[in-house]
């Protein structure tokens, strides 16, 4: 259980995280979704007590991170797979972590086995591929058999096989009753991995809901219609206050139920060649919802204004 209340982080003039409140419950995978630069990593670092919040607080099972006794046994985290000394072996990396929280050395071999790195345990971590580094990071997160797990962009740069492995792995962890909080900037990935979503943009909470709700709300449903009497139908639909847009060989109708469109066609005696629902892509949906809060949009706008502004003095 992770609870954030009014979490705020300011770097000089930039507000990286702005009054963020959300909660993450055990037993399911909760996605932490937002465009790049939305403040996901900063939030994760604050959960782990690495960065100090400017205001607000975040608690794990009711405690602040630095109040946890042997924190690796309560919270496991993979923030950056490259946070390993390149000349240290995978085993030595896990050995010192285990030692620090009085975790049995046997556990090191167990987690190496779980992530499939036993064969390269004594090899230097600097020579690992990205996928292997991610696995080592996951092994480190699992070391203390924690109830709460945080993963920051765990599938970034992985091949499809690696992505699938991580996705299944998260589901398994959640099924075991753990709290799994995983960040990503890809909604399509989150739709497959997470059942709950915390969505942020520019450091502010946009929504917290189930993934299905978010996707349904996000993708505006539209219907594709093809007909030899398109002109008649277009007028009829427009009168019914639907939005009609031309598409290759037909029209795309939005703002009207698919059944209603069929009825209108029937009433007007219009022959239909196609009447099919169009799911907007998840990426489009995501863009729609977070559109206003994407960092670089604002920059572009400001730049454009500057370029267009008449030279005043």
């Amino acid at each position, binding site marked *: 259980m992770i609870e954030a209340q009014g979490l705020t982080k300011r770097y000089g003039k930039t507000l990286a995280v702005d009054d963020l409140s959300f909660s993450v419950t055990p037993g399911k995978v909760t996605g932490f979704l937002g465009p790049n630069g939305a403040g996901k990593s900063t939030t994760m670092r604050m959960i782990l*007590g690495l*960065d*100090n919040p400017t205001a607000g607080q975040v608690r794990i099972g009711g405690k602040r*991170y630095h109040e946890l006794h042997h*924190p*690796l046994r309560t919270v496991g985290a993979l923030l950056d797979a490259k946070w*390993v000394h390149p000349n240290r072996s995978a085993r030595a990396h896990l050995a010192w972590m285990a030692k620090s929280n009085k975790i049995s050395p046997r556990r090191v071999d167990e987690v190496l086995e779980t992530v499939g790195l036993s064969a390269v345990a004594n090899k230097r971590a600097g020579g690992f591929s990205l996928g292997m580094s991610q696995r080592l990071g996951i092994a480190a997160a699992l070391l203390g058999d924690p109830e709460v797990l945080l993963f920051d962009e765990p599938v970034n740069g992985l091949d499809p096989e690696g992505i699938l492995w991580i996705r299944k792995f998260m589901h398994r962890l959640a099924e075991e009753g753990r709290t799994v909080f995983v960040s990503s900037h890809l909604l399509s990935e989150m739709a497959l991995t997470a059942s709950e979503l915390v969505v942020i943009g520019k450091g502010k909470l946009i929504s917290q809901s189930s993934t299905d709700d978010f996707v349904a709300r996000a993708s505006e449903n539209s219907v594709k219609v093809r007909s030899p009497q398109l002109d008649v139908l277009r007028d009829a639909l427009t009168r019914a206050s639907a939005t009609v847009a031309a598409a290759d060989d037909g029209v795309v109708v939005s703002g009207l139920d698919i059944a209603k469109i069929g009825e209108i066609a029937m009433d007007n005696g219009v022959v239909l060649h196609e009447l099919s629902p169009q799911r907007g892509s998840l990426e489009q949906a995501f863009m729609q919802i977070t559109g206003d809060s994407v960092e670089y949009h604002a920059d572009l706008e400001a730049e454009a204004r500057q370029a267009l502004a008449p030279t005043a003095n």
Partner: protein
Amino acid sequence: MTLLAVERIKLLSTRSPWWCALVALVVTAGFTALVVGNADEQFPATVATTQFGYSFGLAVIMVLAALAVTTEYRFGTIRTTFQAIPHRGSALLAKTTVIAALALVIGEITAFVCWGLSMLLQPNADLALNSTADWINVAGVGVVYAISAVIAAAVGILVRHSAGAISLLMIYSLAVESLVQLIPSIGDDIYEWLPFNVANKFLMGDGGSNSGRAADAGMPLSTSPLSPGWALAYFAGFAAVLLAIAITTAKKRDA
């Protein structure tokens, strides 16, 4: 104890400390061999001469100590460390203790290897350790290495970047301290209280280990007015203050 064991695993599971230890030993012993091997009537071998090269090893030790901290920042393992041990003060104190202990061991080995080497090269010279000053001059090297390692670790914690921390330490200890003497009228007064000059006072005292050799013929003696005992206390105190500042800073900072 757990935290010390953690830092020991971390320090000794990479190769750089081993290389640094080897380089410290080889450079210091090599320099000692050159000096002692070429001693003559005008520049006789003394106990002080056998430790002539200690500052070369010292530079290497400070690089080792600074790197032990800055590589943690460089590779992000400091965050993993603070994740495992959220009490940053204890974590950093344990780290510094382990580094200092390693420096002590390397220092003692280096000092006695240099002394033994000198005995082999100049069997007829009086190199026996038969006074407190002689003992301090040889066995004290490890202590100076350990305290210098604390200084270097503290600078590493404050600066966080390898290149920055190392150049700061090297430029200060090898150049800045002696250049301060060139400041007119007050330069010498300031120099008397600069830490590495004071550390030298602890090792060399008033030249007792130089056994009758003309003072101007050996390594220049420290200008510090402190007694060797107080000189050690002053040097250790300086390191402790620097470490306290570094740890306080690290606690407040975002990791």
